[in-house]
């Protein structure tokens, strides 16, 4: 079933938001956290750490739900998550096939 409208109780729903902390110097670039993050929050950064690896960074900040899996899986104890301030439900969290309006479509197509 697909839905098009934001649920009416969306504002009442507190969404758990995790804050990702990365201890960059410990990272050895194994990419486990990036691969296994269920919400694909993490990505490889361009910067180097002292060891010469690319540590991850939270590319989609705010999407982390504090599941702590990166913490569990990291062999170097280089990443951990703390619970942040609860956020609100965003359209992209619930609506998977929202079609943009006509004007927006045109804008995207012709790049006004």
């Amino acid at each position: 079933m697909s839905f098009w409208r934001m649920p009416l109780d969306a504002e009442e729903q507190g969404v758990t938001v995790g804050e990702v902390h990365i201890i960059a110097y410990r990272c050895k670039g194994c990419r486990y956290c990036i691969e296994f993050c269920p919400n694909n929050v993490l990505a490889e950064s361009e910067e180097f750490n002292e060891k010469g690896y690319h540590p991850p960074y939270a590319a989609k900040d705010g999407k982390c739900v504090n599941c702590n899996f990166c913490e569990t899986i990291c062999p170097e104890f280089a990443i951990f998550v703390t619970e942040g301030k609860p956020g609100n439900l965003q359209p992209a969290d619930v609506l998977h096939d929202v079609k943009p309006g006509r004007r927006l479509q045109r804008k995207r197509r012709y790049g006004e």
Partner: protein
Amino acid sequence: MKKTEENDNAAAVNEEPRIGVYVCHCGLNIGGSVDCEAVALSAAKLDNVVIADHQLYTCSEPGQERIKQDIAEHGLNRIVVAACSPRMHEPTFRSCVQDAGLNKYMLEMANIREHCSWVHLHDKAAGTEKSKDLVRMAVARARYLEPQEEIDVPVIKKALVIGGGVAGIQAALDLADSGYEVVLVEKEPSIGGRMAQIDKTFPTMDCSICILAPKMAEVGRHPNITLMSLTEVTNIGGYIGNFSVTLRHKAKYVNEDCSACSDCMKACPQHAPNEFDVGLATRKAIYIPFAQAVPSQYVIDMDLCLNKNGVRVCEKCVEACERKCINFEDHDREETFDVGTIIVCTGVDVFDAAQIPQYQYKKAPNVITSLEFERLINAGGPTHGQLIRPSDHRIPKSVAFVQCVGSRSRKTNPYCSNVCCMNTIKDALLIKEHWPETEIKVFYIDIRAFGKGFEDLFQRSKMEGVQFIQGLPGEIVQRKNGNLRMIGELMMLHELYDIEVEMVILSVGLKPSIGSDVVRKYLTLSRTSGGFFMVAHPKLRPVDTATRGVFLAGCSEGPKDIKEAVTQASAAAARANIIMHRGMVTVEAITARVDESMCTGCGLCAKVCPYQAIQINDRKKAVVIDAACSGCGTCSAECKFDAITMRHFTDRQILAQIDAFTEFEPEKKILAFCCNWCSYAGADFAGISRMQYAPQVRIIRTMCSGRVAQNFIEHAFARGVGVVLLSGCHIGDCHYIDANTFAEKRYKRMRRLMKQNGLDNNRMQLVWVSAAEGQKFQEKINSLVEKLKTVTPEEIKNSMRFFSEREKQRKEKKQKTRAGK
């Protein structure tokens, strides 16, 4: 006792046929467009006919008495009744001849009502001629009728109910209370169906879930009911009394110990719109659809859960669960068991209003559907019973209802959805009850308040100040403040209106549930043009299907309100009860028989049998397993050595019908072979609907189109028939799994043969007609008559020569093989 019966039967085969023909007037139904007396007179002249008479109503008590008397007086041993469709009265006359001491298979019916008088209402001469032909064909077949012994098979005293809506709940409870074991299958996590979503019911304004919840709970704790939620039917085989059902239980990831405490839900970080609230509220990845759900147990939506592909990432619910009910190792399971009867209650979905773009659904937030309204006004819903408009969460001061959205329109669904008018009236009254100042306008075409207490409710709504405006809006335009302009025409005054309201509720129609398609396929049910399941007879067998042992209830049969659904469910349960209470069913004696002396053990029959009911034994002879044989006759049609006899539809009987058909002017006629379940029923449907078509066609009934052997068609052409039509169920809908694919193969082979030998292969035609496609049958016949006009005498002569030659060769070859053996 049995011995003497057998002796009697043996005697009946050998004795000279003494046939009685009874032509029925059926009041004016037949008598109005067929000269029944002339038909009876012509029948009297046929060989072996001892007596031929016409009666006003043959099916009446005096009519049947007359047949019984004649059997005793004139020593008749075969009866031909020319009346309505055998699908209608064959059982009546069979029991009549049985009472008079004949075997019930010694009856033959000529269908001169559905296939003649009703479709040729205005051409008495042609109708009479056709009736004479049909009677002559029936008499020809009757000469070769043989007595058959039916077998009784035991019935498993267990029922399957598919669908846990209110109809399924009622049917399951009724059967369980009568003491039978019932399996109730529901594809959603909870039973309850559409009724659980609705706030109040019309016309009594009862709280819907308050009256349904006790029934749901009863299902949950009834010792005779096994409730299987989140389960789908994947396969059904077998026959009445002995269906074999395969189900797939989808993984719930939560076991039965769950106390629905909601701790897990609070811990879950993943959100999605709640299907039960039509997307108006959120749920978590671990959820229970609604508070009163049965079984009262949480389930995990794996599409949403973070733990995909067996990687356990998030364990918040597991940690929160005190009773340790959550198990991520759970997986889908299949289960197979046997049941005796099946009740199908697969229910409905609502029409997708976005298909009508001018109503702005899914574009304007303040346009909602009636189902969404039910959730909004429901105290258990997302707004706790506050009717708010989605754009600014404010209670609207004016509301418009638009009727017939997705109903009664050629562009969407042509049928009336039956419940929307009363539902709107009820909704309007509910708004008035809570917010009396709200201005309510109902845009409609007709208000259909036909049931008990419905009109009172309609009048009450008018008294409360609900305005009814005749004329649906042509367009709804959204304004910047979220209000909506309704623009349309008043039907009576032919004036335009342009009315602004704050919220619009689209009264959406009903359409059959998507999931019902799987069930339909395995139970070979027919659908009406609207997509709802067809019953065996719209008036007299309103819950039976053409498949014995399968019954219908609720909206899968057609849109209906709760009361009707419950009534039908109880009726279906009662019908299933009849079968299971007796504990035995009689299976028709239409099964294949192998003549071992003719069998060469080639194994072709075993290969084509859709039921694997034929095996080749050690002595290289084919053997039929009677209990597995369903009687399609494909084996008999494929056998090149005439070793297989299809009982009650033998080669000799069908060839005799073809011979009788071709006695007079065969080049000007169409011979149609129709299968009993779909195309014969489709032709009946054309008759019942009085769809007029050309009178040149004569129909021969077989159980399946797969029974029609190529040599039947060749024989017909050899005898000079103008056009031959082969007709059956649609591919995939065959009553005998896939036997109709053999009909298609033979049809193609026949076309190729004719083309290769310079004959006009358009004289051989094939059409798939379902039981609801009377119109398709009518159109096909009319187009064939056009074809018939182009067939030249030269062409007929060529084909007669060619096919007679082939027949002769085949006969010689057969004799040679036999002599060789």
